[in-house]
């Protein structure tokens, strides 16, 4: 629907020291299109694909990006990160964001298995599937 509740939810959950985080899910408007005879705004939600061969994890010089064995997400072990920013450059889909203030990358971690974006979506348009 393009309400962007998911972006907001993500920001809240991943906020640090009172500041809203940068959302790790984004809604992209794709113009309008005809659907079932009605003209509608089209939106796509994009977030990290938790790639099988994740480019970010591969490029990281300190193995700070690792796969969480339970959620299967690629998660950041912040203590290991040395803030080089290579992961942002490496992700082909633009899902890795290197925050220049806190000097750490931000990425979707599937909220440890219960993603806020999906929980808060008023239209239940997001769900997680294995």
């Amino acid at each position, binding site marked *: 629907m393009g309400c962007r509740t998911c972006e907001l939810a993500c920001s809240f959950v991943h906020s640090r020291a009172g500041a809203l985080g940068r959302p790790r899910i984004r809604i992209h408007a794709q113009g309008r299109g005809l659907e079932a005879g009605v003209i509608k705004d089209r939106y*796509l939600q994009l977030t990290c694909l938790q790639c099988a061969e994740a480019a970010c994890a591969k*490029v990281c*010089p300190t193995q700070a990006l690792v796969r969480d064995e339970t959620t299967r997400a690629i998660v950041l072990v912040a203590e290991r990160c*040395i*803030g080089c920013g290579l992961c942002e450059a*490496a992700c082909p889909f633009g899902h890795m964001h290197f925050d220049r203030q806190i*000097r*750490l990358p931000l990425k979707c971690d599937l909220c440890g298995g219960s993603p806020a974006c999906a929980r808060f979506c008023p239209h239940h348009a997001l769900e997680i599937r294995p």
Partner: protein
Amino acid sequence: MSIRLWIDDREVLAEPGERILEVAQRQGISIPTLCHHPALPVLGACRVCLVEVQQGKRREITTACNTLVQEGMRVATDTAEVRGHRAMNLELLRARAPEAPAVRELATQLGVARSRFRPPAQNPLPNCILCELCVRACAHLGHHALAAVGRGDKKRIGLPHNRPAEACVGCGSCLSVCPTRCILLKETATTRTIWGQTFELVRCKSCGAPVMTEAQRAHAIRTKQLPEDHDDTCELCKQSAASQRLASVVW
């Protein structure tokens, strides 16, 4: 073969070659540190992670980060003596780095409200605590652009031999790991300046937003961290492109 030791009277198993700090942290026992980084080689510079170690008849105060575990070792992480020495070293660091939040917070936590010492005479990089995290991070990335120069009270962090080091690619990792954030990094829309050198930024080929430095990009491609045909678009434009590709499939 595992090593058995005691940390704060808790029996703990560890592997040979492990250090007290990592073993304690695994047990959820927290020991304050300033110069430690799990992804970088240990140095033992800040002298804050002090613990008391009893090994046979020998009892000493030592740093947890670089002390190898040994069979039968008894470690105490929170004795009055340990706290006292941690506080003194923090008081020394507080005089060196009065404005660094990390130092101030830890000092306050350890009961050091102010430092009785004067700032050191030589302190070319204000608030730097000479922990060499920057040096170690830079070396780890293969750049080796930074070094600890000089010794004693004249030790400082700088580019080796006072030359503008071509080795620096302006990646900013040094600042990322710096516990006091004392390294100056200035960025305009097109350039980044760090350690006195100004680097051109790669601009997103769609929107023009700054991405990384040209030098870092070149280094990453040379070292095959990034592909030869690396896509110079910013993260948002990469996302848009991806969404368009997806849209063309869906609709």
